[in-house]
């Protein structure tokens, strides 16, 4: 009963190119579910298959147990907010919003009152009689949402709904979108390539790459426990430390030798054997950067290095520190910048330290994923 919307082994090929490969997952009723991935990863194809514009080559799509794979778009209980809104330029805002109800041959009085209600919901009541080219980008966005929602779809599909807007507006609309979702309680399927957008709005995220679903989970699960280097590098920024397990100390921890860095302590995200090659993802904000060696603590890893780059970002400063042949990114938050102790600067000798359980041992590592980091390592990782 929680399996509200189900993709069951859905595959789509365009010629030799596999756009979506055996996608199987379920979306729960009322949640905001994001499909996240770089352009060309198949997320839009998946969305268009749900909307009915593309027919899958294999697999089925079910909504509340009903197979909708073969239905034409106009007969599916879903509506879409299109990437560039696709508002009808020859119709007023009111007529745009009322279009779906008119297609459903609803009585005029009902259409009018429903449109009024939607205009009120998206706060555009005084713009109802304008044509789309007379309103701003953010307003168009809201019309597109209203036009879809007025039909009370069982799932609302949002195809990069904020991509055409500038940053501040995007952040504001994101909050509005969340409010609308709370108000209507409809299931949202949200397609985006922007990880901050996905993190901010979704209950769960599916990360896609090259037609394959890499990981599905809550934003925190995906951020804190990425399964592979792609997810780790695509969501947020990270450091990759590669090495070999030396000893499996106990149930929870192991020791590993990292190339050029030395021996560190690892948390066993999965059972590890001595001699096994591992890759560790370590988020920059988990690393403390100090001018003095931290007090010894068996749960803490501490290494020494030299600051190579410093970038002041306002709320924090990011450092790149050379340790052996590795460059490690670390962050330092500023709660009281001007009153703070003297901050490390360029060419300073510093100590980096992190708790062993703040790292995440990946189950899969690919060198090319390091290209996704904000500053890729200078040579091969």
């Amino acid at each position, binding site marked *: 009963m929680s399996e509200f919307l189900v993709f069951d082994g859905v595959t789509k090929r365009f010629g030799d190119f596999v756009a979506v490969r055996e996608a199987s997952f379920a979306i729960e009723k009322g949640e905001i579910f994001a499909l996240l991935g770089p352009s060309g990863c198949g997320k839009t194809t998946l969305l268009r298959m749900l909307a009915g*514009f593309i027919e899958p080559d294999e697999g089925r799509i079910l909504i509340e147990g009903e197979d909708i794979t073969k239905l034409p*778009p*106009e007969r599916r209980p879903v509506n879409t907010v299109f*990437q560039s809104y*696709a508002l009808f330029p*020859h119709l007023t805002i009111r007529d745009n919003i009322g279009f779906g109800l008119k*297609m459903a041959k609803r009585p005029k009085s009902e259409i009018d009152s429903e449109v009024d209600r939607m205009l009120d919901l998206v706060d555009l009541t005084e713009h109802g009689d304008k044509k789309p080219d007379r309103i701003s980008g953010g307003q168009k966005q809201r019309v597109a949402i209203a036009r879809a929602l007025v039909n009370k779809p069982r799932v609302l599909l949002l195809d990069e709904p904020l991509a055409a807007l500038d940053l501040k507006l995007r952040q504001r609309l994101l909050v509005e979108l969340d409010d609308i979702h709370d108000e209507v309680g409809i299931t949202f399927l949200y397609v985006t390539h922007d990880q901050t957008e996905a993190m901010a709005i979704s209950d769960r995220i599916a990360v896609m790459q090259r037609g394959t679903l890499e990981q599905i989970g809550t934003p925190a699960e995906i951020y804190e426990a990425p399964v592979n280097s792609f997810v780790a590098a695509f969501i947020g920024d990270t450091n990759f430390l590669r090495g070999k397990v030396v000893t499996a100390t106990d149930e929870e921890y192991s020791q590993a030798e990292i190339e050029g860095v030395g021996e560190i302590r690892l948390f066993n995200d999965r059972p590890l054997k001595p001699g096994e090659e591992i890759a560790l993802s370590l988020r920059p904000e988990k690393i403390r950067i100090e001018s003095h060696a931290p007090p010894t603590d068996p749960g803490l890893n501490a290494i020494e290095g030299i600051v190579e780059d410093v970038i002041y970002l306002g709320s924090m400063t990011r450092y790149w520190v050379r340790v052996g042949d590795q460059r490690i990114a670390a962050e330092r938050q500023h709660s009281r910048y001007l009153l703070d102790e003297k901050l490390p600067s360029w060419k300073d000798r510093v100590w980096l330290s992190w708790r062993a359980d703040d790292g995440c041992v990946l189950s899969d590592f690919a060198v090319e994923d390091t290209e996704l980091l904000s500053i890729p390592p200078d040579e091969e990782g």
Partner: protein
Amino acid sequence: MSELRRKTNPERRAEWWTTLPSAGWLLIFFAIPTLLIVVMSFKPAGPYGGFGEGWSLKAWVDMGNPSYPTVLWRTIRLSLAATLICIALGLPVGFLLGRSDAKTRSILLLLVVVPFWTNFLIRVYAWKVLLHPSGFFRETLVSFGVIGENTLLLYNEWAVLLVMVYAYVPFAILPIYASAEKFDFALLDAARDLGASSIRAFWLVFVPGVSRGVMAAVVMVLIPALGSYIIPELVGGPTGEMIGNKIAQRVFIDRNWPHAAALATVLMIVTLLPVLFAFAQEKRESIAVGKKGGDASS
């Protein structure tokens, strides 16, 4: 807007020198002769053809000849029908051209344009051969019993309509395609998504979306259709005559030039109506769109 900014003198002179050749030529050989038609319709006929001395309303009184309203009505009716059919064909073809990939599109476009580069007279003549009493169509239709032995395909209004559609359909396809090329086809997806069938989406979203192209197509088809001469002359016969034929008859048979001028004035008025309508529509639209600049050259 500051389009009326003061120009320096050399620039002003350069504008005059670059405008003069074409504007002068067209003023002398197009604008003045066109106005001359109206003026000369108030002249008496010369004794040996041409124009006589003084002024006369004779040509305009002769317009009351009962055969003229019939011919005028037929001209308008056939032209409107031809325009409607051309648009009806142009819409799906323009849609397909807009929807297809670059390669298919260039082939289709070429196929539409090539016949239009072949001699007009020859294309009309080809239909005369096809519809000829002993031609392909009639023989085929008679042998299948679709039409009787005595039915003629040639020399009637239907033949004129058919050939007009044939001759003018590229003029409808090209402007509609030009609009369809700029049309955002995601709008059709949006309409489908909101519950419209593909046919309704076509009518409610595509057709209004290419309305500028349709408007241009109406002008491009209706006006030459109203001024048709060769088509009714070759395939129309006496029951398919249009105003163009009457003008030619006055010039070449009676040599009554004022009479021809009066008929041409009538034709001019009839053809000006759709142009004015299209201009008014354009103006209304550009006002509705707002301050995007009423640039006459775009």
